[in-house]
C-alpha cells in the first residue's frame, strides 16, 4: 500500500475530479441562502443579518456606551460646571478648553466661578470618558448618541458651550 505524503491528503472521487459538479454544489449553498432570505423578506420577516442603519437602529447597544457629551444644568437653567478645569487637565488628547469667569451673583451659593466658554473639539476627542469620571459636580455626562458627528469641515467639529448644553426639557 502506498503511503500518503500528507496526513490530510484527500483522495478525490471521479465526480470531484470532474470539478463542475462541485462548483454547482458550492453555488447552491449561496443560492439557497439567498432564496431563504428572499422568502423571509417576502413574508415580512427579517432575513439577512444586516442592520439597515438609517432606518433601524441596533437594539444591543451597551447601556454604558460613550457617545456625545452633554453639559448638565441646574434647575434655574445655568450649567452645573464650576470651571474647575479638572476635565481639561485629565483629557489625554487636550480636546477641552474652558475659560473661567466670575459669577454675576456676588453671593452665589453654588459656585463663584462659571465657565464663560466650554469648547470641546470632537476632531481629537477619543471618547475615553475620563472627563466624566473626574468631574466633581457631574456637570459633564456622556449620552449614547453618536448621530450627526461627521462633517464637511473640520471647524464644525469644535462644539461650544451652547452646542453641548442640554436643553431644559431634557433635564
Amino acid at each position, binding site marked *: 500500500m502506498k503511503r500518503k505524503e500528507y496526513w490530510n491528503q484527500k483522495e478525490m472521487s471521479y465526480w470531484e475530479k470532474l470539478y463542475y459538479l462541485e462548483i454547482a454544489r458550492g453555488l447552491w449553498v449561496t443560492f439557497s441562502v439567498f432564496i431563504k432570505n428572499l422568502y423571509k423578506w417576502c413574508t415580512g420577516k427579517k432575513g*439577512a443579518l*444586516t442592520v*439597515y*442603519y438609517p432606518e433601524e437602529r441596533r437594539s444591543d447597544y451597551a447601556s454604558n456606551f460613550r457617545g456625545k457629551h452633554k453639559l448638565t444644568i441646574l434647575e434655574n437653567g445655568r450649567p452645573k460646571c464650576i470651571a474647575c478645569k479638572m476635565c481639561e487637565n485629565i483629557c*489625554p488628547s487636550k480636546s477641552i478648553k474652558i475659560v473661567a469667569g466670575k459669577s454675576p451673583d456676588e453671593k452665589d451659593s453654588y459656585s463663584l466661578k462659571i465657565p464663560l466658554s466650554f469648547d470641546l473639539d470632537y476632531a481629537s476627542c477619543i471618547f475615553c470618558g475620563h472627563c466624566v469620571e473626574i468631574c466633581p459636580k457631574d456637570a459633564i455626562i456622556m449620552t449614547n448618541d453618536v448621530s450627526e*458627528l461627521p462633517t464637511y469641515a473640520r471647524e464644525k467639529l469644535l462644539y461650544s458651550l451652547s452646542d453641548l448644553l442640554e436643553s431644559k426639557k431634557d433635564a
Partner: protein
Amino acid sequence: MMKGFEYFTTQKDELLAWARKFSIFPYPFVTACCGMEFMSVASTLYDTDRFGAALPRFSPRQSDLLMVVGTVSHKQAPIVKKIYDQMCSPKWVIAFGACAVSGGVYQNYATLKGLDKIIPVDVYIPGCPPRPETVIDAIIKLQSKIETGVSKNV
C-alpha cells in the same frame, strides 16, 4: 426628438453625479486600529454595499474614494500624498477616525496634525474609533456631496 436630446445633454452632469453616487470604490489606506472598524462596517452587519461603497480597490488608479483610516505619521505623509496624486479625477477623501482628522491623542512631533494639512478632505469622521453608524452617516453625507457636485478635489 431633437428637443428631447437637447434636454438630455443639459442633464448630463446630474446623470453622471447620480451614477457616481452609487458606485463609490473606496481605497482603504489603513494605517492603524481604525481598520478593524472599517472591516466591521464593510462586512455583513453594517454592509456598506447598500450604498454601493463596499468593493475596496487595492490600486489607487481604480478608486474614487480615498479612505485614510488611522494615524498618519510624518513618515507616512508623503506616501498618502503620492497615492492621492495617483488617483484619477473625480476623487473624494474621507478622514476616518480622530487620528486622521486631527492627530487625535497623538499630539507629538511624529504625527501629522490632521490629514487636511497635506490633501483636501471632503468628509471628516471623528471618533476613536468611530461607530459603524457614524461611518454610514459619513457615506450618506459624501453621497449628497457627490450628487450636488461640489468637490474640492476635481
